[in-house]
């Protein structure tokens, strides 16, 4: 694993070069979730990166502007900036690994960003783990969780009356960032960065089945891969805890290996 900083202002990334006996000459760019989900997923994505590198992939996971270890205050984050960050990270991975062939794995809103990224070179395969399909619903749900937290005696000794502000579950979501997230709706997305999309869903997949069907109708080679480990991203008690990917990790690996040598 090697740390890398790229772009200006610099984004932080961790590069896992292929370590297996059979390097595949193929890169996997990991686009993590945002905000509290970013922190929850860190450990699972580290394990996944190590496993993918062992399987011969060159892997880059990185933090968007204003997220994790990258430059920028959380208050400055913008969706358009993040979408461009995905493109910049893809180019960084291709340069680091000296490869052309690229798959992108996006997790939650990271999946949304991967699908709507700007400046992205050709992507052979887009893998979306529990993608946020509807940005507006995503924000509404976070707002509900935030309101519930303020009156939860396990968090606060006394119910809190918060001053009006941008805070949602510990992170600032200003008007511009909220507008950018609300505008994201993968169900209405016409230009996809890859002709091959796999949606990986842990637990009940009924909500994403119509989305996968719709992709197929648009001529995209779309696959739904189910796993039994359901990550409850909307569990308020889990905010701040590391998640366990369980067999989702295997499902992602199998998706990336499928039809490839």
């Amino acid at each position: 694993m090697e740390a890398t900083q790229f772009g200006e202002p610099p984004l932080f990334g961790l590069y896992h070069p292929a370590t297996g006996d059979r390097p595949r000459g193929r890169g996997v760019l990991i686009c993590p979730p945002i905000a509290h989900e970013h922190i929850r997923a860190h450990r699972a994505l580290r394990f996944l990166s190590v496993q993918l590198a062992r399987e011969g992939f060159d892997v880059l996971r990185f933090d968007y502007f204003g997220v994790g270890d990258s430059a920028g205050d959380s208050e400055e984050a913008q969706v358009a900036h993040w979408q461009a960050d995905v493109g910049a990270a893809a180019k960084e991975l291709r340069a680091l690994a000296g490869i052309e062939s690229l798959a992108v794995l996006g997790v939650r809103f990271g999946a949304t960003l991967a699908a709507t990224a700007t400046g992205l070179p050709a992507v052979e395969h887009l893998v979306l783990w529990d993608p946020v399909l509807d940005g507006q619903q995503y924000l509404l749900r976070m707002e509900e969780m935030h309101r519930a937290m303020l009156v939860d005696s396990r968090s606060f000794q006394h119910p809190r009356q918060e001053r009006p502000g941008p805070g949602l579950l510990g992170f600032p979501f200003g008007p511009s960032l909220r507008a950018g997230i609300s505008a994201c709706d993968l169900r209405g997305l016409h230009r996809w960065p890859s002709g091959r999309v796999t949606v990986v869903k842990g637990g009940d997949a009924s909500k994403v089945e119509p989305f996968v069907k719709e992709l197929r109708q648009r001529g995209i080679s779309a696959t739904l891969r189910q796993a039994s480990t359901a990550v409850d991203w909307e569990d308020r008690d889990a905010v701040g805890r590391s998640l366990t990917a369980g067999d989702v990790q295997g499902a992602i690996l199998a998706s990336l290996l499928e039809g490839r040598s």
Partner: protein
Amino acid sequence: MKERAYAFGEGGGLFGILTEPEEASQRPFVILLNAGLVHRVGPFRVSVDLARRLAALGFSTLRMDLSGLGDSTPRPGEPDLHRRVVADLRDAMDFLAQRRGARRFVVGGICAGAINAHRAAVADPRVAGLIMLDGYAYPTPQFLLRRYGPRLANPAAALRFVGRQLSNLVAPQPAATPSEDDEILSQDFPPKDRIAAELRQFVERNLALLFIYSGNWYLYFNYREQIRDNFPDVPFGDRLTVEHFPEADHTYTLLEDRERLFAAVLGWMREKFG
């Protein structure tokens, strides 16, 4: 401000990000530890924000992952958590001494991170200051009065409380399945006598101590003078600063609470080491 990632320690297994002001100074270096299992950025990125604000004041900060956490690899051959933590911190201080000539350190953490910071201070004389968020505290008569007094004044509430305590005593407890994660998350407070002896040692070494407690720690701490009452024989003088944010939760989730936390830490750093 400059930021760069480093791998250090034996075999480069430890990982951290060093945030430095544009101009080097003789001030102590700050080391921020993991809060529970959260990687080095801290809950809600609190360690990143704090490191950058400290850099604006002229302090360099390493936010690091202890072995086996975040992006640091496990430390082989050392099964004891306490010894691992001390060895990790020693490696971090050695690294900063070699690379930047650092001689004094302020170590800080939340919860288990606070207890780990204390351990590092006991083991290494280079630690000049401690920032402990929701670290140890022990009951005192005043603590108990504040905690249980309101119930005692209300007979119905007192009965409900006694009933709950009795049912807790007889209810079957779930079987324990300890894991390494559990070990990190559920560290008990050390015995009070031992802490008293170690705090006396800190005072002799002239360590600056900042103890901050959130409202979420109400089961252990509920008034500002509690630490001095816990250790009446330790001549803290002005070496100990205690802050209490009863309205805040354990990880300072609300932005307004975090601003108050930052103001307390930055003000203390400026006063003691600026």
